[in-house]
């Protein structure tokens, strides 16, 4: 009896104790067997320091288990792994917990999505959960942020971030900081006014909202004509990065609305197509850098901002890099937002270089037209939501680049709440006229060290590992490993359907595994 009481006493504090406090996420490199946040660490490196799978043995990689999703749809999930459990999302906004050893489900939760849900701008997908303390968090296609008990999947709280009827929805994995959950919205194709929100992780109470489009009178509002700011877009639809020492969150913002017809929104349209550095405590924008002023090609700048430190011209700098959808690779000072360098990493025909502050010199005649204007990169960009990877070992930034053009079409844009507000579109050049490549860029300069060519512009992310490998996939369904130093292919396997997801790595029982979604399945690979 006494022994049992003692046991209960020791168990109770353990279960009440925070399972994944923010300190664990901030020190993610200390526990590479887990994958605690969307991009692996707050710096968004998507790098694993596990080194059991190497150049020498990767050829023997075998499936350990395969999980098939319950409902067909595009599976873009990037799993979270914590303490023997993997948390994935399934289309459209379902969360499932799996036993990492076997792939057997432990629980699954599907929010009730109204049949008239409005999802304009992407397929009904989800890219992953965030984990903090005892909960996992998911943003849904009907615009809710939901906290689930990590052990059972029971709902802790469920808040509407904004009105889905006006086109607000979510597909991104939230970002968990100390005590708060950050999430940005999708919906620029429906003419929303974008924002990044922070919620109290315990209660779901909103702590702050940082609009990506300023209201009249606020700094940047002079970059919008008339009332165009009200429908100005600037979605914050992917997951940002965090520097705990600077207390700054780095978040990319999307295209202005309407996408391809900029007539009614004269000006630069801040802070669309930008990187914003936001104070994590109060949500104030400390600095911004706009990659594509007055965008008319739908070149969102939501791509993953990658944080690293390096010397530039002999001076140690805190840096943030982004391989932007507009085909330039940018390096900025992440304390100040100062532009340091940019170089194209894929074919582009819209800019004749950049000025000293990183503002593009526009090439004339590249705007969308009724007849169609051929411009590179294509409408989905030289990059898109799939993640790059940065290896602290090689100091290389790995990016899956899309080599493709689009005939950009200009159309009418009339705003009506909850309807498409795009003003055009495009006719893509595809098939044998388009291609892609995994490229290794020197992180500080963007200079290409090697490339591995792909048949088709990829819509998949990369993982680099301390085993000297880069993992990636193809539209045709190949999952492969490259030598991180040379780009030489070392292993590949056909998974049966297009890969449109980001790989991760984790460990259990002393073995390293790599996970990737393809088609309607999640695959986990390890050495035999």
């Amino acid at each position, binding site marked *: 009896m006494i022994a049992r009481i003692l046991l209960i006493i020791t168990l109770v504090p353990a279960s009440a104790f925070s399972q994944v406090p923010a300190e664990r996420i901030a020190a993610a490199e200390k526990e590479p067997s887990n994958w605690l946040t969307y991009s692996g660490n707050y710096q968004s490196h998507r790098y694993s320091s596990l080194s059991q799978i190497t150049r020498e043995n990767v050829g023997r990689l075998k499936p350990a288990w395969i999980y098939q999703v319950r409902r067909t749809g595009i599976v873009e999930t990037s799993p979270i792994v914590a303490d023997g459990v993997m948390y994935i999302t399934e289309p459209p906004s379902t969360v499932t917990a799996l036993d990492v050893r076997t792939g057997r489900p432990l629980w699954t939760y599907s929010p009730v999505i109204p049949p008239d849900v409005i999802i304009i701008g992407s397929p009904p997908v989800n890219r992953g959960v965030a984990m903090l303390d005892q909960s996992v968090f998911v943003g849904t296609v009907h615009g809710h942020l939901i906290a689930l008990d990590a052990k059972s999947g029971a709902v802790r709280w469920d808040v509407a971030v904004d009105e889905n009827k006006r086109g607000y929805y979510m597909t991104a994995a939230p970002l968990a900081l100390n005590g708060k959950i950050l999430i940005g919205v999708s919906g620029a*194709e429906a003419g929303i006014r974008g924002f990044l929100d922070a919620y109290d992780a315990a209660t779901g109470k909103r702590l702050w909202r940082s609009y990506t489009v300023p209201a009249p009178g606020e700094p940047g509002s002079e970059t919008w004509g008339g009332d165009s700011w009200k429908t100005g877009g600037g979605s914050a639809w992917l997951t940002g990065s965090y520097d705990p020492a600077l207390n700054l969150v780095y978040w990319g913002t999307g295209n202005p609305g309407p996408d391809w017809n900029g007539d009614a929104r004269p000006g630069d349209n801040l802070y669309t197509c930008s990187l914003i550095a936001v104070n994590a405590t109060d949500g104030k924008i400390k600095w911004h850098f706009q990659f594509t002023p007055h965008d008319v090609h739908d070149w969102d700048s939501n791509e993953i901002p990658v944080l690293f430190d390096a010397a530039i011209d002999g001076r140690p700098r805190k840096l943030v890099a982004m391989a932007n959808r507009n085909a330039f690779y940018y390096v900025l000072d992440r304390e100040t937002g100062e532009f340091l360098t940019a170089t194209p990493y894929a074919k582009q025909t819209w800019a004749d270089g950049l000025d000293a502050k990183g503002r593009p010199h526009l090439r004339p005649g590249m705007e969308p*037209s*009724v*007849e*169609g204007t051929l411009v590179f990169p294509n409408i989905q960009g030289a990059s898109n939501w799939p993640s790059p990877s940065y290896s602290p070992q090689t100091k290389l930034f790995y990016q899956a680049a899309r080599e493709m053009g689009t*005939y950009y*079409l200009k*159309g*009418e*844009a*009339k705003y009506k709440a909850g309807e*498409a507000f*795009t003003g*055009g*579109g*495009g*006719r*893509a*050049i*595809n*098939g*044998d*006229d*388009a291609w892609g490549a995994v490229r290794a860029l020197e992180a500080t300069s963007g200079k290409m060290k090697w490339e591995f*060519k*792909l*048949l*088709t512009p990829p819509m998949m992310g990369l993982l680099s590992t301390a085993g000297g490998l880069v993992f990636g996939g*193809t*539209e*045709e*369904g*190949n999952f*492969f490993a490259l030598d991180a130093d040379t780009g030489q*292919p070392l292993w*590949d396997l*056909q998974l049966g359907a297009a890969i449109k997801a980001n790989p991760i790595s984790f460990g259990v029982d002393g073995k390293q595994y790599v996970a990737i979604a393809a088609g309607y399945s999640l695959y986990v690979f390890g050495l035999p």
Partner: protein
Amino acid sequence: MKRIRLARVAVLFVGLSAAAPVPARAQDAAEVEQGKKLFQGMCARCHGIDGTGDEGPNLNRPTLTRAGDDDSLRAVIRDGIPDRGMPRVRRLTDNELNQLVAYVRSLGRTTSVATSGNAGRGRELYARLGCASCHIITGAGGSFGPELSAIGANRGAAYLRQSFLGPAEALPRGSSPVPGRGFTEYLPVRIVTKDGREIRGVRINEDPFTMQVRDLGNTFHSVRKSDVKAIEKEFGRSAMPSFRGRLSDAESDDLVAFLSSLRSGM
């Protein structure tokens, strides 16, 4: 819909004249003209300038197979027919949809460019030229080239003519689910194996690591790219012989008329 039309009439009314009502015909003409511009940007690449057909079917017919009425035409333009290779090119406003529908319907009212050829004579020509050695029509024929049972419903007359006069410039793209996504179908390839053997044929499918090929004898080969010495994709060529210079204009017309008459997939 009705409200939008009325609103536009009102705008035109104010814009043009304060006195006389705008005749409906003028409004229709403006709508058709605007629809034509949209069509040229979005649709002409496959359906041909003025909808005379190309890689996609001609639309200058009074009755469209998949768009019997304006609502179904609107749906086809709005959503595409993805499983038949027609994409949703872009999102359109109701106004733009109306303009496109007005233009496509106007094509059906113009004189249809009916081929002047004789389909019966074309059928005989098809047999005499030995086309059936590589093409299947309603179950009969060889399978090296594309099946033609419904080719008249899927291709315009000019494209059909091009396909036998200059097949290398008319290889289909993205009309079949394999390889799909706009890839050239029946692309000639030349492969040299490490032991010096040469395989000539057409690509069936491909990924960065492998290629699936049928050789000229219609035998299947699976190739791992790292295992062969060379792979050459022969863009600008076709495995089908060109009949340019071998047919009179009248014979070409007859063959086009026959191919255009093939509209019954099994």
